[in-house]
């Protein structure tokens, strides 16, 4: 069971990474399949790719390309925050390598993360476009950062636009707590950013204390021209009002990738050791506890630990992993 889970989580993570990289590289339809459609979380994508880079040389190549072309659109602090959800055993100094490449490419912000033994890390250059073209709706978070600057405001905007699409319900109100966990900025930073955006009337605050926030996603979708880039050309001349918006959904990728990589590490260790099932079950519980908010927001079947004591927890955990894998494929 463990070896199967290890291989399935690894494959799912790599597959998800590639569909997101294809969106960032502007590769368009491949064999009729669109690149990622959900909002790409760029720091999470970098970390997940770093965690899987030893499996595929090509991931190292695309990371090298991104460190040169896209690292300026990343938040160093946010990457550090999200990094804590990823097992260090999987990253193996990868963050230091990526930061070194980004610094060499001219972005001095990465200096504090650069370092480690990078001599063994090799990458082939020229594995992505020279210029970035953020054409896919899923690149919304990066577009907002390019437009408004890298920081909590751009990310909050991406979250609020994508949350309604994810829940297929317009006008979703979000608390500061949920926004903070979703975008991985501190609650104080999120509260400050949201209050200022509300002052600017970009978003709307409720009368609650602390307030909740929402925005008019259709209005922003119009401003941001969020429609299907693959729709037939004859429809391209339709007025904006008649073109259906293609608002990319928010999918909590920093948590989803963290869960996948943590579960992969767990399964790999379990398959290679002689540890008792009750210990593996306990470690599985640790993963579920760590990612509980993500699992709850995504309405995934969190096992009830009161009903599945000791090693009995392994069965419902396996069911949960199956569900996450299906969801990741379906909701990319």
């Amino acid at each position, binding site marked *: 069971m463990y070896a199967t889970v290890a291989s399935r989580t690894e494959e799912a993570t790599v597959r998800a990474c590639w569909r997101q990289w294809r969106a960032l590289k502007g590769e368009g339809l491949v064999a009729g399949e669109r690149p990622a459609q959900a909002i790409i979380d760029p720091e999470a994508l970098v970390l997940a790719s770093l965690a899987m880079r030893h499996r595929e040389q090509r991931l190292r190549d695309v990371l090298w390309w991104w460190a040169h072309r896209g690292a300026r659109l990343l938040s160093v602090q946010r990457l550090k925050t999200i990094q804590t959800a990823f097992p260090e055993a999987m990253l193996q100094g990868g963050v230091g390598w990526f930061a070194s490449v980004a610094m060499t490419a001219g972005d001095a912000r990465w200096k504090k993360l650069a370092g480690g033994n990078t001599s063994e890390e090799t990458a082939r250059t020229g594995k992505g476009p020279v210029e970035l073209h953020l054409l896919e709706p899923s690149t919304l978070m990066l577009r907002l950062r390019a437009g408004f600057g890298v920081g909590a405001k751009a990310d909050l905007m991406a979250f609020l636009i994508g949350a309604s699409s994810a829940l297929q319900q317009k006008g979703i109100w979000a608390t500061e707590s949920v926004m903070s966990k979703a975008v991985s900025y501190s609650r104080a930073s999120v509260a400050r950013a949201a209050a200022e955006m509300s002052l600017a009337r970009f978003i709307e605050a409720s009368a609650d204390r602390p307030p909740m926030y929402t925005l008019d996603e259709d209005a922003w979708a119009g401003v941001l021209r969020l429609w299907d880039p693959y729709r037939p050309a004859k429809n391209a001349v339709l007025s904006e009002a008649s073109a259906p918006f293609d608002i990319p959904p928010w999918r909590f990728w920093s948590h989803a990738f963290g869960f996948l990589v943590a579960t992969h590490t767990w399964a790999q260790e379990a398959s290679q*050791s002689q*540890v*008792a099932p*009750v*210990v593996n*079950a*306990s470690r599985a*519980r640790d993963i579920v506890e760590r990612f509980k908010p993500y699992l709850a927001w995504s309405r995934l079947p969190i096992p009830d*630990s*009161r009903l599945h*004591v*000791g090693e009995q*927890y392994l069965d419902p955990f396996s069911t949960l992993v199956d569900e996450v894998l299906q969801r990741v494929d379906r909701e990319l």
Partner: protein
Amino acid sequence: MADAEFNALLLRRLLDAVGAHLEAQGLTASVIVVGGAALCLRGWVQRTTNDVDVIAVVSDAGDEWIQPGISAALEDAIKRVARDFNIDADWINATVGAQWKTGLPDGIREDVEWLRFRGLRVGLAGRQALITLKLIASVDQWPQSVHRQDLVALLPTDEELERARRWVETQDMSPTFPDAVARVITHVRDRR
């Protein structure tokens, strides 16, 4: 957390889980257990208990008993098992270790039965020590108390009760204490 009651089967499962966590880290621990858990695991009483009383820990060399200060690794394993089995966090505790202040019962190091649960070794106190500790625990309890019932169930001989009495009477200097001890002994003898 549920205020769970453990029978011998569940106790073994829980202790095995603690030992498995220690083993997974390449660690070992040895503890001396008294009270209801020791009686259940010995099979001397057929009842449940809600905790495991640790009166001493044993050094790695295996020959020195130490007043229980549960190690961080053992504490972590105990808490994990509590979480994983939905039981109280202090299901293994060293409260009875306070007995070290006034001394341990005579002969407590005799007749210890060792059980091995992967990385955890559990030493079950011997019959005389358990009788002695049950006698002192029964003195200020109602006749229906679990301690008194355990003492009766052990069917102690006069010699065992006398040996226990000699030590128990050293534990409280109040003038009424010997009479209280004698009443418990009479109660037990009457029900053998």
